[in-house]
């Protein structure tokens, strides 16, 4: 192997490299190798431990498993899309429309709710939406509803909760990417007679692409791996794939099956992120900054 000319083993290099290697090898690489290894452990006919893909076969044989998987994936993409649609105008308003002296204040308002734990935010929505909740109280008081309606525990409330939870991770990259968009580009286009839609699709969106990609990646990954929101806001029928993993690990105590599920979720998340990066010709190392 040819090494770079500048490479010497120096004391500082060793001091910096050792803790980082320990961290990445012991807490990232080895555990995921173990995840794959455990997912391939199974039993042969006489009940002895053996290697095999039975855990993965179970996934395809049982419709409940792969249906949940597909559902989770489709809903995650939907949530990512909706988060973008809601957050884009907000980011544009804060960076381009509002008077500069309000910018800092609005930015603070935007960030504030996300410092609070996800659990507290989900709990707030539960108090608002449930049958004995605040919204039902007002609607029945105003005579719009005759009796309270259960608004929680369905797919709509779950998707709304997921959009709410992931909003920050879309808004922040969008704000930072729009800040770097030169106003004079928009002014020039306007002077040359471009209408709003042309400006938006030909100037704003192309410029914002790195922010859109990084926001989407984080939102998608967080939604896919979310457990709290689907569990507390979704109904009995709206199972999320992380709940399947949890059930295998904690309820059934079938760690091998759970590992296979975990591996599939990881593969899906990596695949979608990789495809997203490839389609938009972005690099992960650029996107995270």
């Amino acid at each position, binding site marked *: 192997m040819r090494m770079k000319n500048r490479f010497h083993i120096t004391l500082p290099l060793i001091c910096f490299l050792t803790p*980082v290697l320990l961290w990445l090898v012991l807490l*990232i690489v080895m555990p*995921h190798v173990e995840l794959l290894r455990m997912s391939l452990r199974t039993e042969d006919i006489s009940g002895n431990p053996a290697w095999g893909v039975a855990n993965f076969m179970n996934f395809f044989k049982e419709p409940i498993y792969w249906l949940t998987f597909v559902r989770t994936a489709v809903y995650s993409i939907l949530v990512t899309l909706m988060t973008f649609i809601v957050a884009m105008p907000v980011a544009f308003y804060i960076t381009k429309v509002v008077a500069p002296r309000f910018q800092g204040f609005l930015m603070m308002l935007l960030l504030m709710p996300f410092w*609070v734990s996800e659990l*507290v935010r989900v709990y707030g929505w539960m108090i608002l939406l449930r049958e004995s909740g605040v919204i039902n109280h007002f609607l029945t008081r105003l005579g719009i509803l005759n009796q309270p309606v259960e608004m929680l525990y369905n797919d709509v409330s779950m998707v709304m909760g997921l959009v709410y939870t992931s909003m920050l991770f879309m808004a922040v990259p969008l704000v930072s990417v729009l800040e770097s968009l030169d106003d004079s580009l928009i*002014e020039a286009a306007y002077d040359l007679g471009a209408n709003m839609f042309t400006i938006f699709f030909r100037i704003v969106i192309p410029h914002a692409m790195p922010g859109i990609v990084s926001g989407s990646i984080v939102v998608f990954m967080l939604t*896919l791996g*979310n457990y709290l929101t689907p569990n507390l806001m979704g109904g009995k029928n709206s199972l999320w794939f992380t709940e399947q993993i949890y059930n295998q690990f904690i309820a059934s105590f079938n760690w091998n099956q759970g590992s296979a599920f975990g591996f599939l979720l990881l593969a899906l998340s990596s695949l979608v992120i990789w495809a997203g990066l490839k389609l938009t010709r972005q690099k992960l190392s650029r996107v995270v900054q």
Partner: protein
Amino acid sequence: MIRSLPNSHRYLYGYKLYMGVYFAFLFAPLVVTCVLAFNDSQFPALPWKGFTLEWFTGDLPQRVGIFHDRMNLESIWVSAQVAFFVTILSVTVGTCAAFLFEQEEFPFKSALYFLMLSPLVIPGVILGISILLFSNTLGMFFETRWGIDVPLFRPGFWLVVLGQFSFIATLVTLVVSARLRKFDRTLEEAALNLGANRFEVIWHITLKFLRPAIFGAAAVAFLMSFENFNTTLFLVSSDTTLPINLYLQVRDGSTPVINAISFLLIVGTSLAAIVNLYFSRKQE
């Protein structure tokens, strides 16, 4: 379209309305949670039955306020301890990683950099189960091979710390790296010419320059650890952290005590956010 161009009134008012609705959507759950912490009712729901502080200070059998709620207070304490150790660990290792990737050259650097970024795109639940599996296997190995029982390898306090550290360190690395990239390396060269060694330069010059970024990263690390749920869920044992404990209570029916805790969390984190913002503004 933008502020320097002429805009129709309809556009501006429409936009303001949208922002109003958005911020209402953003704050509604938090405001409702806070308000109902002071409602004199057995349930966190309307109608309003009058103002009370009993969900904070109460010590009656049917109404135990948060300040007398042993279980919840203990979980807050556990969370604070976990967050403390996670912060120390991730700031130390994250700063090392920032120096490693910004200032050192070694083979396979870009591969290792990619590996360092990977926790950002691994779902927290997966990180949790992987670490659980690996530590369990290690524990079994130590037990059968040498007959040693290592408590670290069983779900519990230290495994939670390690699990949270594994991805929070990445965030610290990114924050510190961003600041380190702005550092003028001629300052280091000057110090080296004047006879300082590499470690003296780092200690006296580079770390001084990095201090705001390190404190900022530490604050974020503490908060992320304090509020982590996904990774912790699989690594926790009897000493539950606050998010896990709250989750179990919310799932099995809730009392206004949860609103009281939420109120304290909202006020606490908002204050921390304002202080953090104030200091980061001052630096700029």
